[in-house]
């Protein structure tokens, strides 16, 4: 059960508020328990048609010819929609905030870049008739070489997935092929560290699996407008995306949504709305386009997979002195939101810890996989998984308790973070203390007494001297192999024994060096 720990940071909070901190009934609860909450699909419209799409059978192929003749004559078919029917058949979601180049068609025209990419849409009287017409569509594919691995995609000669980005990486600020973070001199700190730990982490894509699948219903409204019932999680974002793709003013649409049957980030991509609206425009009838379950699981965008290499330098007393990260976000065939995930990831490094030397190279990579998208903390979650695995292993190497090791290295108020912003309102130390208490995990008294409010700032508030690098963007990762590349891809889960192996003390003495630093009282209270 939820417990508010009001003893912590008590002086920073007003507990006499009317709503905050008080239990209250959700305003939509009565609708939920009576089944009257209205989701996008809960509309019965007169004369509604059904839209289904033909999806690519190949992960990468040129489309030589698309023959719709037989399908046009199939019973119940009202309209076949091809890429050429889409007014602006190239878009990227974040173009609405001028971030990235248009790289994804609504319906593929010359090429398909992932298995399941939509090629032709069929609007018919019933779902069954749409399926029957789809079976009569003929597509002549010329299969192309595929690439499914992020590092393979960056090698010279790798198949070009998306011609908008010929190097298979997203382009930042028109020139950079990755996001770069430099803070202090990480190579020198690694050379001086007592132990260096090199590890590789590989995540799998994760499907959101909402109980309600993605979908929308679009219907002609009065005065040339269209009403759109949608499962979108981002109503105005989807509305503007549709206005761009369909090349009409955004006040053409009346979007109705907000009651969503589970989203988790998987319903921001505006996958169905452009086609259902276009279907309604072309037929003058309400058109419904809803993903089936297999479509949702197979072709709905997942949380992207990430490959992460971390090299950490740690001192015998438990202080982490360097963290060097190289990570690849698998964006799949199109950008969607992965470019943003990479920016978030770079900003998040090195995790919630005060590490004086941090280095990050983070790539948004295109492969012939299903395009990835947002999902609950994307950009940060997988990196945190890798970092926290790394923290356990580092604690093991220096013979420290993993909880105390985190408290020791946690950032505190006033510390300078790697992206050159002062840490404020930090609370990791208190979180670990409470977690240890709940788990009946013994912490030594000095670690129970540590506080986020003390020991930060001062020397820790300084931006360290950071070596300059050539300002021209480097070539792809394959040309800049660093020493930790030598770590075998499938290295053992056990941390490698650093030479010379330290005698692991069962209970180390109080960290001398670290304790001195961390007990400093230079911290300024700035919240």
């Amino acid at each position: 059960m939820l417990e508010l720990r009001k003893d912590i940071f008590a002086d920073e909070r007003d507990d006499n508020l009317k709503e905050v901190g008080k239990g209250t009934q959700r305003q939509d609860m009565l609708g939920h328990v009576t089944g009257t909450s209205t989701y996008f699909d809960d509309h019965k419209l007169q004369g509604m048609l059904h839209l289904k799409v033909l999806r690519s059978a190949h992960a990468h192929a040129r489309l030589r010819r698309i023959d719709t003749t037989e399908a046009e004559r199939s019973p119940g078919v009202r309209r076949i929609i091809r890429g050429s029917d889409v007014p602006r058949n190239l878009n990227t979601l974040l173009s609405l905030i001028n971030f990235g180049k248009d790289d994804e068609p609504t319906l593929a025209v010359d090429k398909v870049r992932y298995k399941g990419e939509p090629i032709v849409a069929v609007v018919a009287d019933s779902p069954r008739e749409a399926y029957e017409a789809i079976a009569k569509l003929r597509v002549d594919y010329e299969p192309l070489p595929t690439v499914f691995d992020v590092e393979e995609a960056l090698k010279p000669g790798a198949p070009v997935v998306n011609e908008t980005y010929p190097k298979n990486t997203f382009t930042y600020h028109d020139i950079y092929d990755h996001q770069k973070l430099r803070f202090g001199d990480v190579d020198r700190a690694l050379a001086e560290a007592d132990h260096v730990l090199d590890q590789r982490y590989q995540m799998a894509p994760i499907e959101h699996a909402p109980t309600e699948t993605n979908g929308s219903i679009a219907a002609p409204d009065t005065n040339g407008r269209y009403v759109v019932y949608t499962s979108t999680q981002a109503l105005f974002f989807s509305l503007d995306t549709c206005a761009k793709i369909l090349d009409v003013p955004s006040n053409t649409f009346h979007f109705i949504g907000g009651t969503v049957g589970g989203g988790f980030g998987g319903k921001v991509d505006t996958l169905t709305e452009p086609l259902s609206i276009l279907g309604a425009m072309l037929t003058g009838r309400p058109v419904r386009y809803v993903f089936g379950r297999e479509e949702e699981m197979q072709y709905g965008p997942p949380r992207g997979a990430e490959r992460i290499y971390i090299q950490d330098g740690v001192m015998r007393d438990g202080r982490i002195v360097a963290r060097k990260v190289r990570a690849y976000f698998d964006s799949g065939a199109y950008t969607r939101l992965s470019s943003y995930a990479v920016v978030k990831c770079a900003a998040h490094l090195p995790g919630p810890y005060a590490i004086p030397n941090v280095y990050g190279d983070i790539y948004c990579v295109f492969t012939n996989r299903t395009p990835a998208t947002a999902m609950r903390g994307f950009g940060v979650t997988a990196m945190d998984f890798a970092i926290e695995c790394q923290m356990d292993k580092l604690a093991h190497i220096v013979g420290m308790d993993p909880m105390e090791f985190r408290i020791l290295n946690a950032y505190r108020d006033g510390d300078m973070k790697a992206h050159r912003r002062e840490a404020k309102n930090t609370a990791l130390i208190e979180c670990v203390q409470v977690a240890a208490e709940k788990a009946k995990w013994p912490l030594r008294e000095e670690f129970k007494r540590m506080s986020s409010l003390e020991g930060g700032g001062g020397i820790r508030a300084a931006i360290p001297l950071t070596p300059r690098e050539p300002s021209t963007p480097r070539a792809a990762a394959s040309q800049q192999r660093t020493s930790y590349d030598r770590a075998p891809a499938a290295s053992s889960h056990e941390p490698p024994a650093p030479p010379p192996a330290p005698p692991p003390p069962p209970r180390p003495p109080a960290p001398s060096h670290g304790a001195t630093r961390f007990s400093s009282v230079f911290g300024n209270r700035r919240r």
Partner: protein
Amino acid sequence: MPKTALQFHHNGREVALFVDGGVNLLVALREIIGDMTPKFGCGQGGCGACSVLIDGELHLSCLTLAETAAGRAVETLDGLKDGPNLHPLQRAFMEHFAAQCGYCTPGMLMAAKALLDRNPTPSRDEVVEAISGNICRCTGYEPIINAVLAAAAGGRARA
């Protein structure tokens, strides 16, 4: 397109309708009768969002050929209330925060009703088993299990 005439009891009311061949009961309820309370989640029997009671037994309406409901009694969430009065399960779901997005809620409530109609005093394990065919992706099962147990306990207290 040939249509089949079909009659059944929908929440105690006799309904007569025509369905296309192969149409499932979920589509018949939603698109023909207009009862939107059962939801489409998978069409495969994996999620339970379309759960209804047929002659008191829990069934998946998306896997039920509509015409097999002929002459039978179909109950949906739409019929759970007694006029303006919420069913004890509905009240318990409200009080225990047993719905977040609300999409699995109609199926959960019908699965819970199928259990309590047969077994008014279930154990926690029996509740878990009874809703094991219903997937929730956001509320979490604990509040739902607690709500069903609370509704059962409330029923006992009144009896």
